[in-house]
């Protein structure tokens, strides 16, 4: 017996996933619940004095996460972001101290250096065709060496207040919202539009879903992949500026350490599938926000610090698990019911 299935009309707008996915709504809900709970259980969580520094702390991870989302959607990964941040950060700090450069120039240099390092990653991955994790693991060590050489066995001391525009202080806010977070949201919005409505963005999903099929369909796979890593590098440069800005007057070699894991965690918690083909920058920003909420919340509740690592671990596992559950019925669905996400 055959059921005559009605083919959904190829109407516009049905091809795209909803503007906000289920996972994102869940994240918004979780964050909202946590904020309300923390507002009642701690003396000052939901006050400007607590939320403003929290947003400053979220900005670098979230802005790098935007790049990482593009990379992971294309079924790649970049574990060199921490080391890239060190190189960009130390160059920025040295320029501020030794050359007394203005804010804008420091920003341009940091973003350019990040883009150059990202280009190296992108070229090796797109044209070398070695798996991204191997390449970026290698370049991470290279960049780390480079960064430590620039540090030259010294910390960078006496960083002036040039970057206060992106700092944690009062100069770093507009209408009470930190500039770094505003810029992050703006960049995420552009990336959201790019992924959802531009040809290039849709191609990234196609590549992540099936690179061979994408190539056969005429997608310039290598160019798109290269671009994703260049963008990531540039955004890491921006994040390095944020990090120097919110840091102390001394920059030490710990800058960037472990950031790659924080960024990948935020991306995965945000619902981006680690195998590629699905994901959203909105989720990533929310993921970064959730991680920092938990970290700050644990401290403000007087709980042992290591609990925040435990919670982040649980979130990652839950997020990956949810992704697998979503993926399974997707594969069993008839072709015409599969929608790109």
């Amino acid at each position: 017996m055959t059921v005559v299935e009605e083919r959904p009309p190829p109407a516009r707008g049905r091809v795209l996933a909803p503007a906000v996915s289920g996972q994102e709504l869940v994240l918004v809900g979780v964050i909202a619940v946590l904020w309300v709970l923390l507002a009642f259980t701690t003396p000052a969580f939901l006050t400007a004095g607590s939320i403003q520094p929290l947003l400053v702390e979220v900005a670098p991870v979230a802005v790098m996460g935007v790049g990482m989302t593009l990379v992971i959607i294309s079924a790649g990964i970049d574990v060199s972001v921490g080391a890239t941040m060190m190189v960009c950060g130390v160059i920025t700090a040295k320029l501020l101290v030794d050359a007394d450069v203005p804010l804008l120039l420091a920003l341009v240099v940091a973003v350019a250096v990040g883009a150059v390092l990202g280009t190296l990653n992108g070229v090796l991955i797109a044209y070398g065709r070695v798996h991204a994790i191997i390449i970026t693991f290698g370049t991470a060590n290279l960049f780390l060496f480079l960064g430590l050489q620039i540090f030259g066995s010294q910390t960078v001391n006496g960083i002036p207040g040039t970057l206060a525009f992106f700092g944690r202080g009062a100069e770093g806010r507009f209408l009470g919202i930190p500039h770094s977070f505003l810029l992050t949201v703006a960049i995420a919005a552009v990336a959201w539009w790019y992924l959802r409505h531009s040809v290039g963005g849709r191609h990234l999903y196609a590549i992540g879903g099936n690179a061979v099929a994408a190539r056969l369909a005429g997608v310039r796979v290598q160019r798109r992949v290269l671009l994703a890593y260049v963008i990531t590098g540039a955004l890491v440069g921006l994040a390095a500026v944020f990090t120097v800005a919110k840091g102390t007057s001394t920059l030490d070699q710990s800058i960037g350490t472990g950031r790659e894991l924080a960024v990948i965690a935020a991306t995965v918690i945000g619902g981006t599938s680690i195998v590629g083909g699905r994901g959203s920058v909105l989720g990533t920003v929310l993921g970064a926000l959730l991680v920092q909420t938990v970290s700050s919340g644990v401290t403000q509740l007087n709980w042992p610090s290591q609990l925040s690592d435990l919670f982040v671990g649980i979130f990652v596992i839950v997020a990956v698990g949810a992704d697998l559950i979503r993926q399974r019925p997707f594969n069993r669905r008839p072709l015409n019911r599969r929608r790109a996400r």
Partner: protein
Amino acid sequence: MRARRVTAALATCLVAALALSACTTKNDEPAAGGSGGAPKARTVAFVPKLQGIPYFEAMNTGGKKAAAELGLNWLYQGPTQADAAAQTQIVRSYIQQGVDVLVVAPNDPNSMAPVLAEAAGKGIKVMTSDTDAPSSVREAFVNQATADGIGKGLTDSLLTAMGGAGKYAIVSCGETAENLNSWIAVQKAYTAEKYPGAQIVDIVYAGEDQAKATQMATDLMNAHPDLTGLVGECTSSAPGVAQAVKDAGKIGKVFTVGLGTPQSMKAYLADGSSSASILWDVEQLGYLTAWAGLQLADGKAFQASNNVNAQLPAVKWDSASKMLLLGDPLVISKDNVDKFNY
């Protein structure tokens, strides 16, 4: 297709080269002329926990100074990360070179002990400096300051600023770092004993991450609105807690002290977000280390009080624990911070 294979090969080579470059550690040039030095000069090799950080570089500076003044060869090399296995490799290579004296600041005292025994078996004099390996065969330990001295120094400086009473919190670093924990133990006991009006409300661990320490200090101030003091227990959290106070606009309301290197604390000591930094003269620690190495190599016994140089006229030797003590910790304030260039 061929071009792709070539690029793949190139990429593989690059990765291999990177992996190799990551394994080799930078060899710091020996201070006193190296291999071309006078044949009679004693060679003292120092292996720090890691190289490239200002603290150990300052020790190296002091060691080099001693080498020039006392006529010894000073070698300095450490791992690029605080990694016990990488450190052991460097120690072994010094054993093979046949140095006269081997000085180690062990990352892991237990795994270092057998290696030190091996060195001693080959006639090399073995010492520890900065961090001890108490159960090893080391013939001397150069101690920068006692846990008692540091813990009390931190507590006194902080509570002087806080007016002798109030709530404070500690931002520590590695949760298992033995020296940090021993200082915290003294701080707890000494605060309870000497300052009944003061209370430690929380101790958090930020790792060696300055950014995390800053954020945790911010969170602590929010968690305890009546908090008036913060301690940065290591060189990465000391400037972090001060920055947090400054950003929150609480200079003069929340006071901080910490174990910060002078240059990193300078700006905060100047604007009052940090009241004092407790440290020791790290260059002199390096000098004393080199001096002690020379004594061992020459077979000279330490006296109960040793005249090392003009700045270190009376370094105490405790023969029971085989320990040389640099002296009391220094209180670095805005008045004397410029005397230190690290």
